Structure formats: C-alpha cells, structure tokens
C-alpha cells in the first residue's frame, strides 16, 4: 500500500514516550525509519545532516520549552513538516504551535499506531500543498509586479509619439489655418482633441497603475482635513454651479496614504458635482458605520444617479455611461477609486436610485488609535 519508507525524526526526552512512539509506528501501516534524539540541540544537529520526511517534536524538552523548539526547527528545516507532541494539560500550547506553522499536534496517550501513521502522512501532504501554494502565490505576485511595470512603461512610451501627433496637428492649425477650409480645420481640430483625450487616458492609466500598488508606508490621514482641502480644490466648479460640499458629523482619521485618499475622495466628490443636473449640486460626506477597526464613509449626491444594471460596470477602466458631449472625462475616475481603496485594504460600492442621486460607500481601515478607542 505504501511503497516509500518515511524517515521520522523524533525529538523526545522521555524514554518511555519515545518507546511508545516506536511501538506505534511499528504497528502503523507502511514502513517508518525512526531516528530518536533526546534534546533539541541534537535534533537541530540531525536536521542539518539529513532531510527527514517529518519531525515529531515534544513541547517539553529540557533545552526547549513550549514553542521555542518549533521556531528553531522551522528556520533550519523550512520544508520539513513538524508534528508536535504534548500532554493533555498543554493542548492550548499545542494549538498555538499549529497556528505558528506546525502541521498538527498529537496528545500523548490518546493515540494509537494507525492514528499516528495517518497524522504523519497528512502532515507531509499538507506541508507539501502549503509549500506549493506559497510558490504559486510568490509566482503570482511576481507576475503582477511585472504586469504593473509593463503597464507603466507602455503607457510612458506611448506618450512620446502622441506628444508629437498633438504638437504637429496644433502647428498645422496655427501655421496653415489660412489655407484650410472650415471642414479641413474641423478635421484637424478633431484630430487634436482625440490626441488630447488619448493623452489623458494614458495619464490616467499611469495613475491607475501607480495607485494599485500597496503604498510603501501607511500613515494617519485626517479625512476631515482632506474633505476641507477638496472644498478648496472644487471651489470654482462649486461657485459656477451654485452647489456645496457638506460634512455630516465628525470624520475620523484613517490608515492610508494621502495620494490614494485624495484620488478616492476627489473623484467621488468631483463626480457628485459633475454628474448633477439639479439646480444646486450638493455632495455630503459622512460616516455610515464603524466596526472591526474599519470605518465606512458615504459620499452622497443629489445628481443624476446610476441605474442598477451599471453599478458594477462603472468601476471598470474607461467605462462611460454618457455621451462625451454631455459629460467630459475618460471614465477612469471610479476605476482609480476602486484600485486605490483596494490598495489600502478597503472597498467601495454604490447605492443609487436612478434620478435621485447616488451614494458611494468606502470602507477603509481606521487609524490605529481611533480603532482602539472605537
């Protein structure tokens, strides 16, 4: 049934317990090659000399109490599964060992040979899949980074010929306008505008690719201050439209970084003001919920709203729901919001009744001190 002999390293100071393990392995199905040492130091010596299929580690050794031995073994034999052995009274520590990366724990005196054999085989199998998963994750992470830097360099390189295109269509208009009829000028103007839009889109792709990464450093960002700054930034369009930005209640500090949070709140507030046909656009920012160290903000507007079937689509890159003549923009804003929120371990979603405004919700981690107070 089991063709391979499994090498087992037993680190156990109690000779009686060691003998018991040896007897159980003898009656377990399959064949085991047991090497027994009494101290952790000797165990560490053995793992250096030879690779074992599994290590059985007693948690009460004279030279290593509790989880100390586990850590030492894990660093020296990274890919060998470890099963810890413990007495009935120490089950809690054994559970901790499993949390720290041991594959399993066994309570002495409560197992028989077939259970021990099974535990060993499961430990080996589980360790194998864990390691395979980690390799896959590392690979995935690497691919992701490659893709990001690819997006960045492609966007960057695309800008160069575009810049030229934009410049020369501008020069044609400036230098040769006299020799073109109205239609000729119209064509050139369209070309120039299209080049400008393309440039805008590439700029936004660059922002998207930059902000999708997790920030290098997370700091305390005061959302109240941020919204206040936004009010200044949007002052001109607020004045033009006779609108306002309101803050409902206190806004807490979050754990994040300024660049991403500016994009999140800037785009949501800007959209609320822009996609708005009410005589006086009002955008309200407030807190909807605080729980589990997270805060959920709402950004509510009295604008045109979003029909239910588009509520996911709007977060895609360059997704526009309206004609360019009606509302300017490339349609990258909400994609940037979504990626920026996710990069901060948050999320964003929308609720809306068509025609009666939209409410965007953003969940973000609270700044530590506020999370502790909540």
């Amino acid at each position: 049934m089991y063709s391979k002999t499994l090498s087992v390293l037993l680190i156990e100071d109690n000779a009686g317990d060691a003998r018991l393990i040896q007897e159980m392995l003898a009656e377990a199905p399959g064949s085991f090659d047991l090497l027994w040492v009494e101290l952790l130091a000797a165990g560490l010596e053995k793992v250096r000399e030879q690779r074992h299929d599994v290590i059985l580690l007693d948690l009460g050794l004279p030279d290593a109490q509790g989880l100390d031995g586990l850590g030492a073994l894990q660093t020296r034999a990274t890919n060998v599964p470890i099963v810890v052995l413990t007495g009935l009274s120490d089950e809690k520590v054994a559970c901790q060992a499993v949390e720290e990366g041991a594959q399993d724990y066994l309570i002495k005196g409560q197992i028989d040979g077939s259970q021990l054999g099974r535990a060993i085989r499961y430990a080996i199998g589980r360790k194998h899949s864990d390691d395979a998963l980690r390799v896959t994750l590392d690979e995935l992470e690497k691919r992701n980074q490659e893709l990001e830097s690819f997006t960045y360099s492609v966007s960057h390189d695309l800008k160069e010929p575009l810049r030229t295109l934009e410049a020369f269509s501008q020069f044609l208009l400036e230098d040769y306008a006299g020799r073109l009829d109205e239609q000729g000028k119209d064509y050139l103007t369209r070309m120039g505008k299209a080049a400008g839009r393309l440039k805008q889109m590439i700029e936004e792709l660059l922002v998207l690719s930059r902000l999708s990464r997790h920030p290098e450093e997370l700091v305390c960002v005061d959302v109240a201050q941020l919204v206040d700054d936004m009010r200044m930034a949007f002052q001109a369009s607020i004045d033009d439209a006779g609108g306002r930005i309101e803050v409902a209640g206190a806004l807490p500090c979050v754990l994040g970084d300024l660049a991403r949070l500016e994009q999140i709140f800037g785009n949501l507030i800007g959209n609320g003001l822009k996609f708005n046909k009410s005589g006086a656009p009002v955008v309200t920012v407030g807190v909807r919920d605080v729980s589990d160290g997270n805060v959920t903000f709402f950004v509510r507007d009295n604008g045109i709203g979003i029909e239910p079937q588009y509520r996911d689509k709007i977060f895609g890159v360059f997704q526009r729901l309206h004609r360019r003549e009606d509302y300017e923009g490339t349609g990258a804003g909400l994609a940037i919001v979504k990626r920026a929120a996710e990069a901060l371990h948050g999320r964003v979603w929308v609720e809306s009744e068509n025609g009666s405004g939209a409410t965007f919700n953003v969940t973000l981690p609270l700044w530590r001190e506020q999370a502790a107070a909540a």
Partner: protein
Amino acid sequence: MERYRLLRILLVEDNPDDLAITRRAFEKADVASTLLVARDGREALDVLCGESPRSARPDLVLLDINLPKVNGFDVLQHVRASSGVSNVPIVMLTASARVEDVERSYRLGANSFIQKPIVFDRLTRALEIVRQYWFDVVTLPPAS
C-alpha cells in the same frame, strides 16, 4: 551703444520630431540665433569639450536627458567639470518631467528645465530665466 550678436545655441536632441518642434519654437520666438544641433551625448561633448572645438563656445545649451551614447546627465556633469565651458548655461529637456529627473538636473548644475515638446511659450519662459540668471554672460538681442 551695446552691440548685439547672434545667440549661439547648441541643441542636443536625437528625436527628429522633437528637433522639428524645437526649430519651430525658435522661429516663433524670433530669437536672433544660430542653432547648432548635436544628435547624441558624445557629439555634444565633442562640440563643448573636444580638443579642437568644432565651433565657438555656445551661449546656451538645450540638452535632452534621454540621449544615445552618453545621456544628458552625464553630459551635464562632464561639462560642469570641464574648464573653459563649465559655466555655460544649460537647460535640460525631458519628456517625462519626473521629479527625480528635475531634482537631479538642478543638483548636477542645470540652469533650467523644460518639458517637451518645446513649444513657443515654454521656450521663451526658459530663455527668460536663463537670461536673467546669466545677464552678465549672455546678452540676448531685444525682442522685435
């Protein structure tokens, strides 16, 4: 009365489109100048620090950062360390305008910085900065 001479400008640029764009900006700016062009960093160094200089020392260098053979930063650094030309006004040109590039340019001794494409108003702005900075060294002809 002060006597004006043609401003000698060395443009170091490998991209032919950008070359055409910059030439046009000079025409529009109506700067009385002769434009000497180097197509890579080594050519620029030959002109500026070569053993037998190909022409008189320019009054201004417009230096692209991303250049074949020797890049703009290295040209800048080399010129600043060369006796005779070390104080020539240098304006860096770049497509990206990355903060790091701007900072590095000034650190290495650039006098100004323009983002490409070099359209009329960007050029005049940069020339004005350089003119103010180098008032005693470079005498620009009056704008017509």
